[in-house]
């Protein structure tokens, strides 16, 4: 099995055992690590007490034109060789196997275990991985996983002498500690905006002075989002393993917060040689938090536009292109002006008009168009800081779940609705009139009106209304705070 992007592709191991001659060749575009598998495989087979066949052994990794990399082919090659000399029933070798072999025959953990399990479940065949990988592989829905410690166990597994591990349930949360909305005091407007953003998966821009709690709010978004489905969790796990990140298999949406000094390749994806998913893809099915949006270089913001629209990143490489899913919800935070205190209750802004103008120009334009909800987050009122804690994440989340449910019944999440989807959403008379007035008054552009309609749809969903009414549009109009 090979990974193309974050997508596992099957690789068939073909073994031919020819005339007596002590030679072992490996073909099918192996990289150095794969080529070295020969020596590990030979040693591992010898460690089981067998002789390595004294014949011309040819291994082909098919399709032969797909580049193969890494040490995870050791285990399947070894199984193939053993089967080819007749030590395994030929019918037993329809398995997906992944793992590096050590010289003593033990199986080491693999980077591609989740991909292997995913393929296995797609093809309806079992999957053999290292003990260490079995836990995560078994979470893939429908996967039949054999955990093995060494090559001998692997041979036993494929001949049917072992029982597969029972598929385990998805962890909920687990390693991810979610911060609670109850910690956010005051900020009623920002809280409401975050709830709407969560309910409709809208991109959200928060503008406000430093210390107002923008970051705190953003970090709490995953905690009020609906849990990932098993399929979504698998996608996320594949992406994270393709990026060689810590293993992640959880139903809580990922949260990524790249720094504005990060390179374009690390955020969008790419890199030298083998393309690697960037932060945007690591945040797939979750949240990409961009703090200090104004500090991100303009070319990077431009590079993000198309992936955000399409929900995927395509990285072209010589002769081929790799695609990573990238359907992340963007939460951005920005100071209102270079000094940061424009609109602040307590301190005044000291920026010159021209500095302000430059700042606005930098932030305005097509990228800002992606944000359905823009809200000003002022510094909190002193009373509210000492006041009672806010509503907890679980309460907010239950409303979000209700609204999301209504959207999934219609078939599309509001934040991803295009104009054709919007046109199918009924507006009542008052809502229609208000929108018209906005356009006539020059307050709304065509694209702005679409944004308002999307957000209004989510607000209606939160109040469990089928029809978008005037008050929903009016509230949506309030989330267009400029800079």
């Amino acid at each position, binding site marked *: 099995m090979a990974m193309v992007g974050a997508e596992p592709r099957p690789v068939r191991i073909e073994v031919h055992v020819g005339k007596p001659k002590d030679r072992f060749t490996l073909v099918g575009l192996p990289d150095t690590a794969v080529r070295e598998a020969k020596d590990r495989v030979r040693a591992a087979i010898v460690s089981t007490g067998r002789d390595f066949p004294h014949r011309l052994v040819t291994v082909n990794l098919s399709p032969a034109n797909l580049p193969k990399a890494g040490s995870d082919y050791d285990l399947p090659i070894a199984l193939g060789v053993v089967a080819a000399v007749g030590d395994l029933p030929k019918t037993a070798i329809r398995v997906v196997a992944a793992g590096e072999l050590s010289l003593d025959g033990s199986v080491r953990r693999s980077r591609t275990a989740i991909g292997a399990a995913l393929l296995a479940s797609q093809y309806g065949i079992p999957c053999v991985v290292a003990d260490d990988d079995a836990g995560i592989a078994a979470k893939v829905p429908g996967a039949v996983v054999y955990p093995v410690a060494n090559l001998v166990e692997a041979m036993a597994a494929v001949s049917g002498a072992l029982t597969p591990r029972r598929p385990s349930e998805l962890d909920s949360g687990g390693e991810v500690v979610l911060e609670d909305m109850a910690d956010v005091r005051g900020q009623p407007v920002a809280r409401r905006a975050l709830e709407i953003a969560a309910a409709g998966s809208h991109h959200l821009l928060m503008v406000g002075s430093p210390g107002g709690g923008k970051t705190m709010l953003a970090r709490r978004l995953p905690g009020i989002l609906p849990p990932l489905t098993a399929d979504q969790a698998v996608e996320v796990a594949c992406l994270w393993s393709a990026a060689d990140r810590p293993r992640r298999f959880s139903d809580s949406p990922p949260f990524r917060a790249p720094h504005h000094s990060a390179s374009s390749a690390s955020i969008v994806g790419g890199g030298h040689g083998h393309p690697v998913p960037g932060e945007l893809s690591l945040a797939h099915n979750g949240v990409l938090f961009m703090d200090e949006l104004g500090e991100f270089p303009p070319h990077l913001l431009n590079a993000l536009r198309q992936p955000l629209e399409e929900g995927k990143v395509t990285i072209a490489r010589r002769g081929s292109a790799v695609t990573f899913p990238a359907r992340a919800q963007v939460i951005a935070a920005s100071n209102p002006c270079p000094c940061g205190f424009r609109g602040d209750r307590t301190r005044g802004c000291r920026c010159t008009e021209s500095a302000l103008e430059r700042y606005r120009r930098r932030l305005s334009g097509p990228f800002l168009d992606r944000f359905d909800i823009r809200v000003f987050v002022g510094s909190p009122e002193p009373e509210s800081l000492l006041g009672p804690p806010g509503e907890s994440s679980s309460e907010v989340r239950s409303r979000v779940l209700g609204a999301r449910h209504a959207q999934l019944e219609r078939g599309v999440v509001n934040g991803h609705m295009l104009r054709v989807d919007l046109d199918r959403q009924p507006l009542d008379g008052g809502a229609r009139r208000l929108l018209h007035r906005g356009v006539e*008054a020059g307050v709304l*552009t065509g694209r702005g009106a679409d944004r308002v309609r999307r957000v209004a749809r989510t607000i209606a969903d939160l109040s469990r209304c089928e029809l978008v009414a005037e008050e929903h549009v009016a509230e949506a109009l*309030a989330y267009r705070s400029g800079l």
Partner: protein
Amino acid sequence: MNPEWASRVLQMEVPSLLRLIPDPPETLWGVGQVPDRPGVAIVGTRRCTSYGRRVARWLGEAVARAGWPVISGLARGVDAAAHQAVVQTSGVGVAVLGSGADTVYPPENGQLASDLVATGGAVISEYQPGTPPAPFRFPARNRLISGLSSAVVVVEAGLTGGALITARLALEQGKEVLAVPGDIDRPTSAGCNLLIRDGAHPVLGAEDLINCLEFILGPAPAAPAPRTIASGDTVDELVAASDRPVSEVLAELARRELEGGLRLESGRMVTAPKKGSLD
């Protein structure tokens, strides 16, 4: 003026406040409702500077918010600025015209006239509908402006002009006169400075004006209007002051924004120039 407005002009009863002045009007026409409590007149030159306009707005807003009706003449300059502030604060304002109430002069204040009526104020005149504006009528209507008020604030005035006439009439009617000081070398403030020299209260700021008015006149005649949306309010304050859910307050702000005059910027309602898009 549009016929729709003209059709709204009705003959009104002369309010008791105006029957007390030495030279009461015989008849009164107008649109809207004249408050039965005395107000505060904010007057000044038509050819005001940006200083005058700014101060007029500032004081108009403060007075309206404190709960006094704001009385003025709907002329260009200071009058219009004060009325505008009243409308934006959703306060009560009365405009006394020097022409028939169906003929708003200058015409560009037509919208302002209907806004005044919409926020609970009135546009009145002692002249029959159809009477055209004429220079000699303006000093006469000034006695009605001071008549409806218990204090007259002169924001900006030269040595000649209607504002000083209003101040003189106010003194004759026994009303308080206050004036906003200005640079001594600025002709548009010469009248105000003169009034101060002659004993008018100098107005040092919006808060100072309110304190002063409360000292002279006692607390505002009616309880301040319920919290309305005005320029300078932050969204968070409005939400905190309201017992309604955030969603409703935000919806209200957005509707208010579409009506024009105000816009939401950096979490705060600000006075909007009528142009441009917010996107």
